[in-house]
């Protein structure tokens, strides 16, 4: 019932089924997937009961960080089932409290494998976007590198990002996160073959001993790694923030990242009806992904008076009929053990509840209220730390090469401050470069050149209007204040203040006129003209780089809003398919009816002749029509569907939904 068999973007590799035993009952699922996933796919969400109040528990983070998913596996209690793969014949039991060892203690005390002693020039902890790029950079400069990563698959959070990335085209803009993970791994693989890179996956770094310069890791509960590195790059990422409200520990209250892992890596839905808490980029993106996976998002609640993520992401979910309730929060999640619904309420500027409580029926509550950097290793290594709210919490102070106050440790990625994967990759590059220079692997001139280049790109990505918080945060995180390398806008750019509609992802009426092409040209142009609804300064340019005629003008600054030379637009729709924000549309006004060319990334897959419901910017059905053409211009699974509608609706309809039944 929770299994995703068809998905508009993803395919799930499910080759070999295994039989395992859950409290003695035989169940089946696919080999290599984590135990918690296998259970969820079989409808089992409760993994344990707590020691004090005997409350049922499900998983929360699904990336091995929160320890909510403990179960007894083959007699061993406290096994993190979210990162332990299921195997044929495995005995899995619900854990009560601390759990009991089985009678036979031998497998608890017996060491299955001898500890591994290891020396390395560079140790990278965490194989997400930052860590993988740090490895690449260090390897390319000739360092020998060891990578430890907690997950079963490398790539960190990239392996669950089905959306196309923003940023500039030289940094993977327009490419889906899952593809970026593959590309990075491909680039690493020759180094693995040559022995220059050693990778230990499913391996957690658990302790750093400064005096001994020893990093202790454990792999798959099987063996201990004692690593003595010359330099360490810590890119351990972050974990979803836990939010205090009544019922916040019920089974079905999951971190947004956990929901992504479950549905996008393993093809299992967390539930059918989801309430999303938080309208930052993660909340918005995961909401869209839930819709793609076939779940319903009943609402997104956001404490702030505007969405925190990119406006285009908000518009994307709004037009698919997901309400975004600003200045709202969850008061209470209701259910007997598992989530059945939630009470939400409005809050005023001081955070007091006002107005009436509203009940929302849902079986899953997804927390996307921010991330906390996973910084324990820095504390253990006595690094100078600073609390920066804008960066997600405590982070290590660093210099311009991302070196911390402990000369052996560097930092990169979300653990340095919560940002985007694109910036994480560049930070990884910088840390890798600096480490290589430190080991004397690279000459001063090329080091300087590269460093400047990476900083230029990083500065660019951080010049947008939603990045103002990041900029404010970063000012507190560096040892040096001003520097030629880090650039901030001369005058701070803040998100544009618009009306309430706009803040929740619907284009204001006044802006609709601005984005409309000139009417005299529009009426004549067969094939139509582009309409771009992308009013925010964000770092993104695939609309320009994918336009074959130059109709979308070159960006001076990657954060510019697109400018259009309508005389050059042919209405080809390539930008419609390429735009990560799904903010480009083509409208042909030359005939009797308007023909809309809309991006389409949902199920069912569209076909010519399909009936569609035409939705406006709020997701309300304003017309019905049929698809007359289906294009897949970029062969990357974003279709462009052509739908005729009455001309007066041309500037209202922004999405089409295929209706298959009746």
């Amino acid at each position, binding site marked *: 019932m929770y299994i995703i068999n068809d998905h508009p973007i993803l395919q799930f590799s499910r080759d070999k089924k295994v039989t395992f035993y859950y409290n003695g009952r035989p169940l089946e699922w696919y080999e290599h997937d984590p135990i918690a996933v296998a259970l969820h796919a079989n409808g089992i969400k409760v993994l344990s009961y707590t020691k004090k109040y005997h409350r049922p528990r499900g998983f929360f983070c699904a990336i091995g960080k929160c320890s909510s998913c*403990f179960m007894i596996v083959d007699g061993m209690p406290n096994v993190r089932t979210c990162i332990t793969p299921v195997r044929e014949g495995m005995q899995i039991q619900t854990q009560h409290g601390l759990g009991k060892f089985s009678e036979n203690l031998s497998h608890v*005390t017996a060491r299955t494998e001898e500890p591994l002693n290891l020396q390395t020039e560079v140790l990278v902890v965490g194989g997400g976007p930052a860590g993988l790029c740090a490895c690449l950079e260090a390897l390319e400069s000739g360092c020998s590198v060891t990578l430890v990563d907690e997950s079963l698959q490398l790539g960190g959070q990239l392996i669950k990002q089905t959306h196309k990335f923003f940023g500039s085209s030289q940094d993977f803009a327009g490419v889906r996160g899952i593809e970026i993970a593959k590309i990075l791994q491909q680039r690493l693989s020759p180094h693995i073959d040559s022995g220059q890179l050693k990778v230990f996956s499913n391996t957690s770094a*658990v302790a750093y001993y400064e005096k001994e310069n020893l990093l202790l890791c454990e792999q798959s*509960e099987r063996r201990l790694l004692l690593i003595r590195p010359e330099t360490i790059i810590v890119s351990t990422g972050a974990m979803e923030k*836990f939010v*205090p409200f009544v*019922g916040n*520990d019920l089974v079905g209250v999951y971190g947004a990242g956990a929901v992504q892992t479950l549905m996008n890596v393993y093809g299992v839905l967390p539930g059918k009806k989801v309430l999303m808490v938080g309208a930052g980029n993660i909340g918005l993106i995961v909401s869209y992904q839930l819709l793609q996976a076939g779940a319903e998002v009943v609402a997104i609640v956001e404490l702030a008076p505007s969405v925190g993520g990119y406006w285009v992401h908000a518009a994307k979910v709004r037009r698919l009929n997901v309400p975004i309730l600003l200045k709202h929060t969850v008061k209470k999640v209701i259910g*007997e053990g598992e989530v059945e619904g939630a009470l939400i309420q409005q809050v005023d500027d001081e955070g007091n509840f006002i107005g009436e409580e509203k009940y929302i029926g849902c079986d899953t509550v997804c927390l996307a209220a921010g991330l906390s950097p996973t910084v324990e290793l820095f504390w253990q290594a006595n690094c100078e730390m600073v609390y920066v709210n804008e960066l997600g919490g405590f982070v290590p102070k660093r210099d311009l090469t991302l070196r911390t106050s402990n000369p052996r440790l560097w930092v990169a990625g979300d653990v340095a401050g919560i940002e985007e994967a694109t910036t994480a990759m560049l930070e990884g590059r910088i840390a890798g470069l600096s480490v290589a220079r430190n080991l004397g692997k690279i000459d001063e001139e090329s080091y300087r050149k590269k460093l400047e280049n990476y900083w230029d790109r990083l500065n660019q990505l951080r010049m947008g209007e939603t990045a103002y918080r990041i900029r404010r945060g970063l000012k507190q995180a560096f040892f040096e204040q001003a520097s030629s390398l880090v650039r901030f806008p001369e005058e701070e750019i803040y998100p544009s203040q618009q009306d309430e509609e706009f803040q929740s992802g619907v284009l204001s009426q006044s802006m609709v006129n601005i984005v409309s092409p000139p009417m005299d040209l529009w009426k004549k142009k067969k094939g139509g003209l582009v309409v771009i609804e992308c009013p925010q300064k964000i770092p993104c340019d695939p609309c320009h780089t994918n336009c074959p005629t130059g109709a979308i003008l070159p960006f001076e600054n990657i954060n510019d809003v697109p400018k259009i030379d309508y005389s050059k637009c042919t209405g080809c729709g390539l930008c419609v398919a390429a735009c990560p924000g799904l903010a480009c549309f083509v409208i042909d006004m030359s005939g009797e009816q308007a023909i809309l060319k809309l991006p389409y990334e949902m199920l069912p897959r569209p076909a010519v002749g399909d009936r569609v419901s035409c939705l406006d910017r709020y997701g309300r059905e304003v017309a019905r029509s049929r698809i007359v053409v289906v294009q897949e211009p970029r062969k990357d699974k974003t279709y462009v569907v052509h739908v005729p509608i009455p001309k007066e609706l041309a500037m209202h309809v922004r999405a089409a939904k295929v209706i298959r039944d009746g």
Partner: protein
Amino acid sequence: MDEKIFVCRCEEVTLEEVRKYIQMGFTSFNELKRLLRVGMGPCQGRGCREIVLREISKATKIPISQLNPGTFRPPSKPLRLGLIGPDRQEPQLQTGMTSDPQTRSG
């Protein structure tokens, strides 16, 4: 259903308890950790630390940036004893405390 708001999932510490102890004058994370066990569970405070610090900050009017976030001791993850213990020995109880009969007699 009860009205518990959990701050620490691992050790099941509620917001009410944290607030009560802060009122009683325990305004550092380490004190609350010893008294309530916040942050002593297997996640080592990854979920609760910030919520607790925010509460302390609210009550004492000291910004979080100036609060001590408590001690971080290794290991940061649960470790299987068999991995660090001596090789193939029968499990022995040895607490090292002075009340431990073995230590005292020795």
